[in-house]
């Protein structure tokens, strides 16, 4: 297929996934802000959200040092100058879809377009301010729908594989960032031993992380025990059956990448496979003994590099 078409499909799914994950994080911060907690803890939550997306400097440049829930939500939802806001992500997803609408099934294109049209309505009527929770639900729901429509209607050809690759590469990135910030928030690095500070982050902190990746019930089902940070990390990093974990995301990236392989992509596939194997054969206590932050930083670098190589090999190739 046309490289440019593959590129648009790849980014269409990445932006849709990114919008979903931003909605998930905003939602969880918003929900926990409704719980009794110290102002300092709440502040850490909102700040963490900006740190995850590497947007703290942009935010403070625009809104000042004061990090208020209202401003952060405004910045992360409707601010068009912020390329990571939900509004910007959904616009980019729709623009990418429009650029290749002929390569999408009618149902998938209409889903993307309807999302964009409805979003404009949401932002115009202030419906979002009245009930942020319902809005975040809606964003998640549209992402689920878009994914479901793609899986349910698209021919499983190259287009489909690039679409899927984009989703899971983005998800690997987003879940890793979430983990890094939420654990990093606990102390300078997390080595698995509960410190005094950990006590302050109780059940609600850890369950919030799980809920933000739809992992609360999953955790209960898998561990049938109290929530501990080590297990939260294990679930979200290593469990291949947990759909939003790093391991599950990498499995999908590798299997889709293997199908579309071309003459130049051998090295990319090898590196993706190696990253996948590193997760497959890792143990959580090992990871924690060298430090979670160090592990995640390295993981993010490797995912980022993978994205660059996929671009180079398939999406914006330099031929001649």
């Amino acid at each position, binding site marked *: *297929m*046309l*490289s*440019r*078409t*593959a590129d648009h499909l790849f980014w269409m799914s990445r932006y849709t996934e990114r919008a979903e994950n931003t909605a998930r994080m905003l939602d969880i911060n918003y929900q926990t802000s409704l719980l009794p907690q110290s102002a300092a803890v709440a502040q850490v939550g909102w700040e963490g959200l900006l740190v995850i997306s590497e947007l703290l400097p942009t935010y403070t440049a625009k809104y000042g040092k004061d990090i208020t829930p209202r401003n952060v939500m405004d910045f992360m939802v409707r601010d068009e100058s912020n390329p990571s806001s939900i509004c910007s992500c959904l616009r980019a997803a729709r*623009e990418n879809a*429009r*650029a*290749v*609408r*002929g*390569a999408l099934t*009618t149902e998938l*294109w*209409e889903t993307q*377009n*309807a999302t964009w*049209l409805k979003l*404009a309505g949401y932002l*115009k009527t202030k419906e979002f301010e009245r009930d942020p929770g319902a809005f975040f639900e809606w964003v998640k729901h549209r992402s689920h729908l878009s994914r479901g429509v793609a899986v349910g209607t698209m021919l499983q050809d*190259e287009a489909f594989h*690039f679409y899927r690759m984009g989703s899971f590469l983005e998800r690997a990135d987003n879940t890793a960032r979430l983990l890094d910030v939420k654990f990093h928030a606990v102390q300078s690095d997390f080595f698995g031993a509960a410190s005094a500070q950990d006590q302050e982050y109780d059940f609600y902190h850890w369950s919030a992380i799980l809920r933000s990746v739809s992992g609360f019930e999953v955790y209960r089902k898998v561990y049938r025990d109290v929530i501990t940070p080590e297990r939260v990390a294990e679930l979200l990093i290593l469990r291949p059956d947990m759909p939003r974990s790093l391991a599950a995301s990498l499995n999908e990236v590798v299997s889709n990448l293997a199908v*579309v392989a*071309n*003459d130049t992509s051998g090295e990319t596939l090898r590196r993706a496979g190696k990253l996948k194997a590193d997760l497959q054969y890792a143990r959580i206590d090992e990871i924690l003994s060298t430090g979670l932050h160090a592990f995640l930083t390295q993981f993010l670098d490797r995912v980022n590099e993978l994205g660059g190589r996929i671009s180079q090999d*398939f*999406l914006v*190739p330099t*031929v*001649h």
Partner: protein
Amino acid sequence: MSRPMFDEMNATPTEVRAHYENYARWLAQQPPEVMAARREEAEMIFRRVGITFAVYGAKDEDGSGTERLIPFDLIPRIIPAHEWRTMEEGLVQRVNALNRFIHDVYHDQEIIKAGIVPADQIFQNAQFRPEMMGVDVPGGVYSHISGVDIVRAPNAQGEGEYYVLEDNLRVPSGVSYMLEDRKMMMRLFPDLFGQNRVAPVAHYPDLLLETLRAVSPATTAEPTVVVLTPGMYNSAYFEHAFLAQQMGVELVEGQDLFVKDNFVYMRTTKGPKRVDVIYRRVDDDFLDPLVFRPTSTLGCAGLLGVYRSGNVTICNAVGTGIADDKSIYPYVPKMIEFYLGQKPILNNVPTFMGRNPDDLKYMLDNMAELVVKEVHGAGGYGMLVGPASTKAEVEEFRAVVRAKPEGYIAQPTLSLSTCPTYVESGVAPRHIDLRPFVLSGKEVQMVPGGLTRVALKEGSLVVNSSQGGGTKDTWILED
């Protein structure tokens, strides 16, 4: 000033024409609120499907973008089968002659030698492409997709008569609206199609693909066809994407193509792939920066060289503009006689040419009664509709024409036929035209009907979407 009118549906205020009887009876039974709901439904669907076009330099009221809907009217334009049969014959004849003419212009120029078209009309014409001299194109076909604009106006007896207003032989657009309008009508009013024998149009993309494959270079048995678009910000982008999808071929942009060893390739995820036929929706000027406009990024460097060697087919061919130019239009009836030895089946509109002193005098003296058009203009820009203009506007245009007479032609203001149309105040007659899409490959063929455009402003004769026109479904009623 009152002009004779011809309405497609109503012969007199109380009498409906025979081919509209069925429909009129049905329409009378529809409660207004149901029709209003259908109009809203249509708009919502068009918006969701994204059947939009961009207006150059325009912004939506809320500033959110430039995507507009083309208004769709619920009342179809109906043509009886016997009228269509004649029109179809006339179109085949006309497009055949035009293709012969373009071939002749770029080869032996017999028509100039015969003194039928003056040499300077060709060689001084900005649409003449010397790069095409002596280039042979597959099957001798230049205009593979022709959008011939036809209007109807009352003659002295008050009968409606068809006239060809212009031949669009470069990159005519609008066919996607023909197809989407039909789809919409069938979705909104399925019962109507059970009661009326409406000729189907949905096979247009198949015919188009067949046409494009038929003119592929001889070097390949399994041609790769692509649609070349300027990109998603072009006003007709929806149509480009739509046609590529319906034909199951790639929609490419200039940046996706490159030339190597005298062949054209596209960049794919599996490496370069050769391209054999390019259905381009990019104007000549932008096709190849090495030959035409050097700053263009919409085309592909070296494309014309490959084309001239016969290793790729460009549809429509480069240089077809020489035949649909308004200054050449008056010669088309003579072309038909010259190349085919036949009498023209379709009428031309009587045309005055600014380059002829007698015609010019008439134009200047009667400008307030005439439609004056710039010979290279398109899309309803650069024209004057005398009777609809103020004195000052007429004066202004008179000066413009006097300064460059050869750049203008004039025609009597035809009172285009009207068709009942939904407007704010209810249903009222509005002026319409018709653009059938004629395909030339191995043979010349078309789907029955075409795109009916309607001028929504009261009294307006300008149907272009860029000037506030809408569209209607077009029915050829089978006997």
